[in-house]
């Protein structure tokens, strides 16, 4: 059990546990956040999990946790850890079950007053066109052959099918296509699950939202991202569906014996890993990248149906119903990146689980459109609360291998949430706040109620305080579509 006193406050928002806390630690553990968020981290087992991560072979500098850290499977959620490409490991638990769960934001030229009279219709049409909920198939049915192309090409496949523009791909992390993807590394069972689900939101905390930009913190960056106050935007939050979950489950199973075979110990079986420089390690990365591509394609297909829905409802009623992509980020991924560590350039496998890349202006990996501004960092709030758009900074490269938070964690169990309120009640309370809701499951709605989540504003303020991203804009929802 780690005690608060064992951490040293290195800076206003930086808390460090020295590696001599446990002889198995290879690096110190660091928590980034306000004092309140640091204290809250002791409420669950996320700190023990962070300490465990610090024991994994080839880890570089620190095992890190972002301000929204909470207990996960293996890595804490909000966990960031980078491993040397030659000597380090890759770990499915450092990516998560929902590979490439992420957020896409689209911006319109519509003002709030223009859309208000049509919100009800728009919510209904979106709910119809963008499948959500348990047991629901996706908007696009695939053959095995086509699925393999989705796994290789991601959003590029979507463009070939007419679901994306080149501009969409440019404004997607990694161009919507992870390198090193290999469909053969994806277990058949995962493919079976993926075949009927492309173009679906899923359930749980996934959502589609219509939001209004209600605050601009940095005018220049906001303008570069295509955002302004009073504007209608759309957010899509979902991942790789059953295919991704199955890839993670299968590889957790397949890698069970790898630590023993490669001569290292893991403190928690949920941290099974293999050297990146091994057949097993490369296979996992290839399967993970393929699942990630599925998720990019999924969000792209959904974006296409969002655009069709806007056209269906708003053509002839507003002057311009077109939606331009702001960005699409992933918050569950492992990426091969070059970083400067102690003055030397090194190739690292950066695991971000419940954490978002946050690259600064000038970074060569950034799309040209944003290279002089920095990367948009999309941080969704919980249902009915604000979401934020941030921009990546130089400090993030120095402090967190270019990483930031991803959203707010829960404060209350699903069970407790359903006992506190019924879904219908949550829906009418949101309605009173001016938020139109379409949800498949009333129980799911209660589980996802705003009161069940921490305050994302506090998380974002901490991120800004650390300096790993800066606030650019805030949005609040006017319509929510959930499974």
């Amino acid at each position: 059990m780690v005690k608060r006193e064992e951490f040293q406050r290195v800076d206003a928002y930086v808390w460090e546990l020295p590696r001599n806390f446990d002889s198995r630690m290879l690096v110190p553990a660091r928590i980034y956040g306000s004092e309140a968020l640091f204290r809250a981290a002791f409420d669950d087992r996320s700190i023990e999990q962070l300490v465990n991560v610090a024991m994994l072979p080839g880890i570089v500098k620190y095992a890190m946790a972002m301000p929204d850290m909470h207990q996960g499977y293996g890595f804490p959620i909000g966990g960031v850890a980078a491993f040397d490409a030659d000597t380090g490991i890759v770990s499915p638990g450092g990516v998560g079950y929902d590979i490439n769960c992420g957020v896409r934001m689209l911006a319109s030229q519509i003002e709030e007053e223009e859309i208000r009279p049509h919100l009800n219709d728009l919510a209904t049409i979106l709910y119809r066109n963008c499948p959500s909920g348990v047991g629901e198939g996706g908007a696009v049915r695939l053959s095995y052959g086509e699925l393999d192309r989705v796994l290789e090409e991601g959003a590029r496949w979507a463009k070939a099918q007419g679901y994306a523009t080149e501009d969409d791909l440019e404004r997607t992390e990694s161009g919507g296509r992870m390198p090193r993807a290999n469909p053969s590394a994806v277990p058949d069972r995962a493919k079976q699950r993926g075949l009927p689900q492309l173009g679906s939101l899923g359930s749980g905390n996934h959502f589609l939202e219509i939001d209004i930009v209600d605050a601009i913190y940095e005018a220049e960056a906001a303008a570069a991202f295509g955002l302004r106050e009073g504007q209608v935007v759309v957010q899509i939050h979902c991942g790789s569906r059953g295919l991704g979950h199955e890839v993670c489950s299968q590889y957790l199973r397949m890698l069970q014996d790898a630590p023993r075979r490669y001569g290292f110990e893991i403190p928690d079986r949920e941290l099974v890993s293999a050297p990146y420089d091994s057949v097993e390690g490369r296979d996992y990365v290839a399967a993970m990248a393929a699942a990630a591509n599925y998720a990019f394609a999924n969000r792209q297909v959904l974006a296409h149906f969002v655009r069709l829905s806007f056209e269906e409802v708003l053509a002839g009623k507003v002057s311009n119903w077109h939606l331009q992509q702001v960005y699409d980020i992933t918050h569950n991924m492992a990426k091969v990146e070059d970083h400067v560590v102690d003055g030397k350039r090194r190739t690292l496998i950066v695991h971000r689980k419940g954490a978002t890349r946050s690259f600064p202006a000038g970074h060569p990996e950034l799309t040209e459109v944003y290279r002089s501004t920095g990367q948009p960092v999309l941080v969704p709030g919980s249902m009915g609360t604000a979401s934020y758009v941030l921009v990546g900074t130089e400090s993030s490269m120095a402090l967190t291998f270019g990483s930031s938070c991803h959203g707010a964690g829960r404060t209350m169990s699903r069970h407790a949430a359903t006992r506190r309120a019924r879904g219908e009640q949550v829906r009418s309370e949101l309605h009173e706040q001016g938020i139109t809701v379409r949800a498949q499951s009333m129980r799911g709605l209660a589980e996802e109620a705003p009161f069940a989540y921490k305050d994302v504003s506090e998380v974002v303020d901490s991120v800004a305080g650390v300096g790993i991203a800066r606030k650019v804009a805030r949005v609040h929802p006017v319509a929510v579509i959930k499974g």
Partner: protein
Amino acid sequence: MQGLIMGRWKEIPHTADLALHVWGSDLLDLFATAARAMMSFVAVPAQQGGELRARVQLEALDTETLLVDWLGELLFLLERERVVFVTYDFDRVTPNALSADLTGRPVGTYLANIKAVTYHNLAVVQTEEGYETEVVFDV
């Protein structure tokens, strides 16, 4: 063999996901009870519709993995076949292997989606009364 189903289960508080504690008089009872408990959170079988069958044969390095595989198989069949399997006729249950004939009905209502059966805190423990375990599901 169906064995004597004496097992029981209860939900344990968990902030983000679903956690169950399960007891069984023997390994078969534990596996059957864990399965029924999990299924009660994900789907309700239809009242009408014929009975559907499936066969499951699994082997694993350890009992915990076997349990994860077993529960995962039921979730996979629910998703792919849209069938809720709640009757299990095991012809073998050992710490490393099981085989069973399953009987179920089409899904009547979906209740929730389980993303995965995790290994979190997972330990199948033998006690004086039989077996017990805690299983956490990523929801």
